[in-house]
């Protein structure tokens, strides 16, 4: 019994983590409005979800904002991280402290700060402010993901590229960027999930009529709306597919690589 105790405990913890996920998926197929009694199988909540324009729009905004915010914050973050590695210590410290402030601040504080900024300077809140806010809070995480890779960089390689006639920009593009690629990829992935999952900041800086999935779920929580179960199920399925692909593609790639190598021999 003692031998199995750790495994039983871990199984219970995992059950706790997966219970609500299994629960929403199960009840998304419920025949009735009830969230506690399963009366029969039906797809009506999926039909209702697809027919609900605000709901579909919220998915659209979540995805579009996550994609744009990821691209922009990854570009700015990469450029800044490269610049930081060559900057004076004062500048480096200053930017680091600023990023720490952004990451360690409670989300609600960042959120009201941005809201006050936008409103005080007369910027109408809506899609633009929502997107801008997402880019703002994603960049520090991108920089954080890239910095370790930049520290490992061998300065001599870039110097060699310059000596061999590269312009600084060519050295950047042909030598530095390829070496820090894994960091950039991690940064982009972090940015995407941060943006896609965000609720608190989006809630404060969005304008009327613009909802992402989180703010939509929050705003419709007063009534019982089983379509949200259907929406959740779609997200669960979507995320699972993305995660499986993210884990399987590198695996297949390395296998192919190995195969190619053995063929060469």
């Amino acid at each position: 019994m003692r031998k199995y105790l750790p495994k039983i405990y871990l199984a219970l913890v995992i059950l706790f983590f997966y219970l609500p996920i299994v629960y929403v998926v199960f009840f998304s197929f419920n025949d009735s409005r009830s969230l506690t009694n399963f009366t029969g199988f039906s797809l009506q909540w999926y039909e209702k979800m697809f027919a609900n324009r605000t709901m579909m729009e919220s998915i659209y905004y979540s995805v579009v904002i996550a994609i744009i915010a990821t691209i922009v914050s990854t570009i700015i973050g990469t450029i800044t991280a490269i610049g930081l590695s060559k900057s004076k210590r004062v500048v480096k410290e200053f930017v680091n402290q600023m990023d720490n402030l952004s990451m360690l601040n409670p989300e609600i504080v960042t959120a009201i700060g941005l809201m006050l900024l936008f409103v005080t300077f007369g910027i109408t809140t809506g899609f633009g402010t929502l997107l801008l806010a997402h880019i703002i809070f994603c960049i520090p995480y991108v920089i954080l993901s890239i910095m370790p890779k930049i520290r490992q960089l061998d300065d001599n390689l870039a110097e060699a590229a310059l000596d061999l006639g590269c312009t600084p920009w060519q050295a950047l593009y042909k030598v530095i960027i390829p070496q820090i690629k894994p960091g950039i990829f991690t940064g982009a992935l972090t940015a995407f999930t941060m943006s896609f999952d965000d609720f608190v900041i989006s809630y404060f800086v969005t304008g009327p009529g613009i909802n992402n999935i989180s703010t939509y779920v929050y705003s419709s929580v007063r009534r019982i709306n089983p379509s949200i179960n259907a929406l959740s199920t779609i997200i669960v399925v979507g995320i699972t597919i993305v995660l499986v692909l993210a884990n399987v593609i590198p695996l297949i790639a390395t296998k192919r690589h190995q195969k190619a190598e053995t063929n060469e021999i």
Partner: protein
Amino acid sequence: MKEFRRLVYPYLVWGIIFILVPMFMILIYAFTDEGNSVMTFNFTFDNFLRFFEDSIFIEVLWRSLKIAIATTIICILFGYPAAYFIAKLRPNSQSVAVLIITLPMWINMLVRTYAWRGILLESGLSPEVKVYIGMVYNFLPFMILQIYTSLSKMNKDYLVAATDLGCNARQAFMKVTLPLSVPGIISGITLVFLPAVSSFFIPKLLGGGSFVLIGNLIESYFLTAGDWNFGAAISLIMTIVILVSMFITRKFDHEKEADNA
């Protein structure tokens, strides 16, 4: 290579505008009175006096602190054994276990919290207990992962040495494993306590309208009441409480380190 230095300048300006200025705005709003315009400065402490003179606000602050501290303790108590057991698995199973625990975190926090509403709907539990379940559910994975990381980095030779020197399993755990995992516990505390204090959608979704924490106060003063000055003051008070708590935790950590040395 100095050309690359210039690459940092755009973000320097960006960060000042979008990270520092907003914080500064909160300060200004907290110390001025109404008229949602920064142009008409009117320095005042009234917002803070209003908070500390009203027992309701103090009660909400106290409740938020109490719930955040309790959530943190519950997460350590349940998270530590989980992390410990994972660290004892075979290396391959360890990464599988970590993956299984991280997976749900990829799904929107709000969606997962919403799911608990259905489960707890007819449970008959008090709003407070429901909020605790929601908090522990959302933040426990962070605690497990932090403690697991520090345990997996531990040099196993220390344990062998402790056993050789006559420690039994329990003593070896208390004198070697536990002290070495303190950094993991501390970073776990940061990742649990901080969002727990300021959380506002968990109490709203699971506690019903009656259960108010400091985050809900800030939300309602900004979005419902439209009293931004008071809302800014509340968030400043909350930030200071968080900073002080984190300072105490860190200090405790350093003292422990000093003891060990």
